């Protein structure tokens, strides 16, 4: 599993995640409050300039990450054209582009370990409800278990294909889930054997 952080170093990588997230929240709020297409377009241009600071490859990489958004934008714009409200459509599309572009920039320039550190720090006031150790453990366990579960799912699907010409569909999910519940019991036992959460 590869994180979405960009390997191309930019000046944005040096800013700690806390201020970047606050700036993102502020920018998103501004984009939601502004309702004219022109200021939103200017905001989008400024954002593109921020990407360009990282160089051409960084800009292309960033645009590629936003590509899955394209069909939705086309549908929204088309729908507004049918409703004869091109300005409202432009505002909506520009808002989406600004909010998602800015969020994507933060993601591309922040390392995963910095994000985990920030989350455990933000969760500290909740420590009597949610011990930071438990949170860090849950995050680490989950990231570790994604490839394990994917492998379990592939194995169940291959076993199905060996027996049937039809598509497996949902029928492989129950065995995968039962196996997962067994895994949970064994991992919990192993954690307790190693001293547990205490």
């Amino acid at each position: 599993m590869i994180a979405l952080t960009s390997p191309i170093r930019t000046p944005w990588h040096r800013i700690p995640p806390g201020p970047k997230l606050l700036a993102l929240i502020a920018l998103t709020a501004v984009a939601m409050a502004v309702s004219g297409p022109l200021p939103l377009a200017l905001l989008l241009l400024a954002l593109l300039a921020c990407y360009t600071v990282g160089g051409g490859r960084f800009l292309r990489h960033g645009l590629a990450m936003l590509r899955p958004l394209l069909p939705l934008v086309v549908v929204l714009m088309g729908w507004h054209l049918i409703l004869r409200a091109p300005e409202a459509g432009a505002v909506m599309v520009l808002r989406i582009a600004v909010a998602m572009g800015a969020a994507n920039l933060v993601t591309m320039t922040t390392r995963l370990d910095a994000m985990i550190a920030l989350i455990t720090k933000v969760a500290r006031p909740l420590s009597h409800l949610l011990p930071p150790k438990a949170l860090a453990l849950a995050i680490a366990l989950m990231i570790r278990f994604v490839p394990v579960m994917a492998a379990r799912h592939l194995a169940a699907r291959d076993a199905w294909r060996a027996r049937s010409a039809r598509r497996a569909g949902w029928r492989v999910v129950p065995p995968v889930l039962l196996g997962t519940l067994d895994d949970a019991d064994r991992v919990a036992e192993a954690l307790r054997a190693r001293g547990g959460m205490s």
Partner: protein
Amino acid sequence: MERNITLIALFAALCAVLSTVPQIHLPMGVPITAQSLGVMLCGIVLGAKRGALAVLLYMAVAAMGLPILSGGRGGLAPFVGPTAGFIWGWPVAAFVTGLIMERWRASVAPVALVAAAVGCILVLYPFGIVGLWLHATQSTALPTIAAGMAVFLPGDLIKAGLAALIAQSLFRARPQSLLSRT
């Protein structure tokens, strides 16, 4: 404690794996993903509290920048995008689904179907509608957007049906595996 943490982490991982199942396109061109199936299963199998926590963990790890949302998306962008309302509504949807499973002790399949439909349609859609409405301008009325949600309805009904079938076969294979019922 250890068991609950591992269960939550494993079901968060299950959501991530289900989101990699390729999209199916309905005739009208509306994509169906297995994404909300994961949310339904968290509630149905783990129950209200643990189900909601599993979904929250999945969201947190996705927000930190792993590409585990449907279509290989990840990072902070989906949390402010046009479909962000659905994402923010997931933990509530999983909680309600789990609560119905815990409280309504009738036979598994029909209860799971109702629980998944109430959680991931009745509870979740208003979040999605508000999310999309925040991106629209004042001239786009809330009812218009709400009517637009109808395109997702067939897909979500199919998924609620699948969730009920999965719950039923889990219960048949091993009754104690439905932790919401124990």
